[in-house]
């Protein structure tokens, strides 16, 4: 570092320096460059060591020089428990391999468990293999809801009749959302760098998200949003089964299809309610504005809709606004295509995706928000930009993958 003391230091640099001081003991939590893995930061350092919620001075971004030593000291102090976490991770991976478990990402599934083990037991002892076996059983054979349980529940004739009645009743009781103010531009103008808690709160309280759904029942509106293939949304079926590929558009999915993907992901399944509760909630949710249950989620769809309105059209929204930033990401992609020698003429099988990037964007956004509702991870004012930006990135990267595999298929044909 320079000899001149800067007013702030990048947190990444401080973390890297402190991490390097922990040496080889934390190698299982590091990448080949010796930096902590992305998930080490996300699942261990942030929530369990630095805890910016309690210590705002350690939040990602620039760290004031006077807090720099405190931050590195905090990581150094956690050295023994981090080293033990790393050892436990190695033990769990070994046990996982021995049991031929391939489900899920081990970092997602075990990192926080390992930190717990390290806190309670310290370094793995003679009984480590037994402890690891117990943890793996908990993680992988947990009772949580499963696809099989879901299928059994909805195909039971008594349940099916009752659930269909619930669906009918929920949809019969639908009231058109009150038209209200959906003035989102002020919040969107700064949400990427300085999200305004008060503005977000006012939009939630003013039911801007629900109001934004008011015209979805008009012919062609939900269709233009890419959320249905029908002219207007209809009551979803209860459904019996689902396949991960070729799911219909969000509003056309059956209740079972809506719950299917979250149940197949071991990492996400952990925090879900039991099957009957999930199904009943999903029925209620399907009849709500945007077919979502929480006002925050509905608002984020409206924010995403407004911010993505001008991806390809003339620019709207000032410099630095969410709209301008999304647009810049989308424009950048055209250049990346040239550099990576991706097609500039679009093959027919992916043409619809490219033309309909905004529809794909809104679909993906809905699925994300729906998943967060199931896991009770309501979007907060300061997470909005990461969600809005992350969804476009994910749509773009999936498109790239599809173009690339279309090219590779051609090359071997």
């Amino acid at each position, binding site marked *: 570092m320079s000899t001149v003391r800067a007013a702030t230091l990048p947190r990444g640099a401080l973390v890297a320096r402190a991490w390097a001081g922990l040496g080889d003991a934390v190698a299982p939590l590091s990448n080949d460059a010796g930096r902590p893995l992305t998930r080490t930061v996300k699942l261990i350092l942030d929530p369990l060591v630095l805890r910016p919620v309690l210590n705002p001075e350690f939040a990602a971004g620039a760290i004031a020089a006077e807090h720099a030593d405190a931050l590195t000291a905090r990581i150094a102090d956690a050295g023994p428990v981090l080293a033990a976490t790393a050892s436990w991770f190695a033990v769990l991976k070994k046990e996982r391999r021995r049991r031929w478990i391939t489900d899920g990402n081990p*970092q997602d599934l075990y990192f926080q468990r390992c930190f717990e083990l390290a806190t309670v037991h310290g370094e793995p002892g003679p009984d480590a293999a037994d402890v690891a076996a117990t943890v793996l059983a908990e993680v992988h054979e947990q009772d949580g809801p499963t696809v099989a349980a879901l299928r059994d529940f909805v195909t039971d004739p008594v349940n099916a009749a009752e659930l269909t009645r619930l669906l009918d009743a929920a949809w019969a009781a639908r009231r058109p959302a009150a038209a209200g103010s959906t003035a989102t531009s002020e919040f969107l103008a700064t949400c990427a760098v300085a999200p305004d808690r008060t503005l977000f709160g006012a939009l939630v309280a003013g039911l801007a998200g629900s109001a934004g759904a008011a015209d979805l029942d008009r012919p062609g509106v939900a269709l233009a949003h890419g959320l249905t293939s029908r002219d207007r949304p209809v009551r979803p079926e209860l459904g019996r089964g689902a396949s991960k590929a070729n799911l219909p558009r969000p509003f056309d999915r059956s209740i079972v299809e809506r719950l299917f993907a979250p149940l197949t992901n071991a990492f996400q399944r952990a925090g879900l309610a039991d099957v009957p509760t999930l199904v009943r909630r999903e029925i209620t949710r399907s009849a709500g504005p945007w077919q979502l249950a929480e006002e925050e989620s509905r608002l984020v769809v409206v924010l995403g809709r407004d911010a993505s309105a001008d991806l390809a059209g003339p620019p709207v929204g000032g410099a630095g606004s969410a709209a301008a930033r999304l647009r810049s990401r989308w424009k950048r992609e055209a250049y990346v295509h040239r550099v990576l020698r991706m*097609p500039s003429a679009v093959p027919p099988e992916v043409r619809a995706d490219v033309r309909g990037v905004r529809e794909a964007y809104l679909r993906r956004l809905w699925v994300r928000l729906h998943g967060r509702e199931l896991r009770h991870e309501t979007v907060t004012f300061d997470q909005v930009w990461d969600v809005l930006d992350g969804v476009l990135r994910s749509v773009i990267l999936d498109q790239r993958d599809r173009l690339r595999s279309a*090219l590779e298929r051609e*090359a071997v044909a």
Partner: protein
Amino acid sequence: MRVTRAADLVGDWPTSPEVVALLEGSGASLAWDVLADAAAPAARVHDPERAAEWLWEVYGDAAEAILGGAAEVEVPDGGDWGVRDACRRVAQLNWAGAWWPASVTAGVPALDPAVLHAERAVAVSTVEHLLDDPDAVERALASVGSFDVPTSDPEVDALAERVAALAEDYGVELRPARAPGRAGFALAAGGVDGGTGVTALSGTSTVDWALVPHGAVDAAAPARWAVVRRQGSTVLEVSVVPGPTPGSRLAARFGFGEVEVALDVDATGWLTGSAPVSAAVLLLPPDRRALTVYAPDFAEPTAPDPDAASRRAAIISYARSRIGSPTATVTERTAR
């Protein structure tokens, strides 16, 4: 090294996509010009806050001044550049996957896509913490196939072991090993020979790399054409030397759109095609007797770049120099 900065741009961003080794970081993209051999890349900063978390790994102490808006900064030579070098490796592999100029005629052997995908996944994992895509490692692993080890190359064996461990760490199952994908990449005699007719006119044109997918045609060989008179009719015949992975639908356009010819792999392995043309083709002025080869599903023909020929010659000789080079990636070194 001195670096200039203007608006969101740091350093000199290479102009032609063909020489760009690109890395998409969180909040900023990095680019090296493969022909320039500079240690520090150019950067475009999209989001200074996100970029600040890691740009010091690339520019050292100069990062702060760069993000602070200084017009010119001095990037120190000394320091720990492990992460920057790892970024370069990812970028280099991105470049090789797109532009490596495999050519039988120029003596540039083809890359092994299995080695490329594996080495790229390992390289990506090394810089995962600064990439734009938080799922970059899983995404990179998704295109990796497992290897049948041991191979004939200990370096490839080490790579195979490393990528298998990585896949386990991320809970990704590698695709089953495929039979060696690279067909005999050799060239039989063939091409336009006029056949039984009388060749009235003939010529060659270079193929614009940007108009065809990577590996579809030989990167150095020109496309050949001939206008042949046969049994009272006039035919345009076209032939192109295929690259290591032909298979994309190709076509050729003669003149300014006067004639379109579809190209197919013939019995000798060449990409050839012919189309009847009006005898008036023989009257075209020489500057319009130009042949443009392109892949219709990939790109629309565009006006050729006058600087392309010398740049591509330089890229081809650069690629040749990489094959035995200790500083090259395993992928480049093991091209054959």
